[in-house]
């Protein structure tokens, strides 16, 4: 009897699991290659930070590789992944007067796949938190060089996260703007008819 109950209980939970897994199923993403690179450079940066010392004895090459992976990850997320996976962009524009304006934009035209966005946000946020954790542990153990590399990773990740978060707020504001415009139009038409 118990096992029968357990069998009935397990079904909805399994259904839930299947939905969650499909949210991260990269093979069904709109841009699987770009999702892969989004994850790949982060993975390489973490791997070289944590384990490269076991493979390569020269600390110099470790440092070089970590810096290169940090740079690649930042560039990829800012210029390529953000644009294709979530349709957002942020940059700085300097006016002729010399004032610096930060712009946070979203592309209306692209269709945003849910899997793409969830992969993007999960891994960006996860990587940022992980680097922040490493900085914290390094500060506590006074490992200054490790602080430098973890700190660079953390700051680049959080900068990207902040930039895209502001873009997504802009996107939400735009959506609300469109919604209010449509409701206004609808009301006008209703009043006229």
């Amino acid at each position, binding site marked *: 009897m118990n096992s029968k109950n357990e069998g009935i209980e397990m079904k909805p939970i399994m259904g839930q699991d299947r939905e969650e897994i499909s949210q991260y199923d990269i093979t069904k993403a709109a841009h699987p290659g770009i999702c892969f690179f989004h994850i790949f450079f982060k993975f390489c940066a973490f791997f070289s930070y944590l384990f490269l010392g076991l493979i390569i*004895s020269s600390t110099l090459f470790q*440092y070089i590789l970590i810096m290169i992976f940090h740079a690649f990850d930042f560039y990829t997320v800012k210029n390529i992944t953000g*644009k294709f996976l979530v349709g957002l962009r942020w940059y*700085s524009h*300097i006016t002729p007067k*010399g*004032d*610096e*304006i930060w*712009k946070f934009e979203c592309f209306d035209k692209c269709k945003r796949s849910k899997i793409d966005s969830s992969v993007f946000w999960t891994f960006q946020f996860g990587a940022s938190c992980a680097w922040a954790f490493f900085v914290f542990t390094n500060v506590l153990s006074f490992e200054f060089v490790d602080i430098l590399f973890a700190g660079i990773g953390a700051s680049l990740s959080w900068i990207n996260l902040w930039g895209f978060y502001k873009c997504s707020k802009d996107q939400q504001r735009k959506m609300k703007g469109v919604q209010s415009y449509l409701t206004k139009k609808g009301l006008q038409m209703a009043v006229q008819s």
Partner: protein
Amino acid sequence: MDYTNQKHPQNYSQMEDLKTLDLEESVSETIMRDLRMIAYKLKYVLIPKEQEDNGKELRNWDLWGPLIFCLALAMTLSFKADSTTTSSKSDVFAIIFVLIWVGAFVVTLNAQLLGGKVSFFQSVCLLGYCVFPINIEAIIIAFIGSYLPFVVKLIPVIICFAWSAYSSVGFMASLVPPHKKKLAVYPVFLFYLFLSWFSLIV
């Protein structure tokens, strides 16, 4: 310091129209476009004849050029460093890396505190691009330095230092009020002098 962080700039839609083309751009096009921008800015900064309007092109700052030159300089000097102890090589790398970025930050901060109206990143971008002659000099010395006496090695060092300093001083001096020019320019000299000297003795 005079910044305006506008949330709704006037030409927002204009900029968006121009840049919606970006969405159609493939990955390789994006990368090539950025590389071309770096090469163009490098030429602009280092070849004085190209400069029509001081700092106009630097408005579209980017920090990728400085990162590439910083990495290249750090790698050159650390490869060349004393190979008897492996720890000193990686130390040199970390020192150069931190030195360039913190140095650029301090020089920019100095210019801003003197009343200069400059975008922080624009100034760091310029200082980073002007590190390129020191890169050249470090590579020259790395390859043929061991065969030359010290005095002969000084010649490319002095030429490249003068080139770096001249390229950046023009821009930095234009940012601050005239009576404070020397105060703004002095740290720039120090910065490149230290980098050149470091590349000579390592």
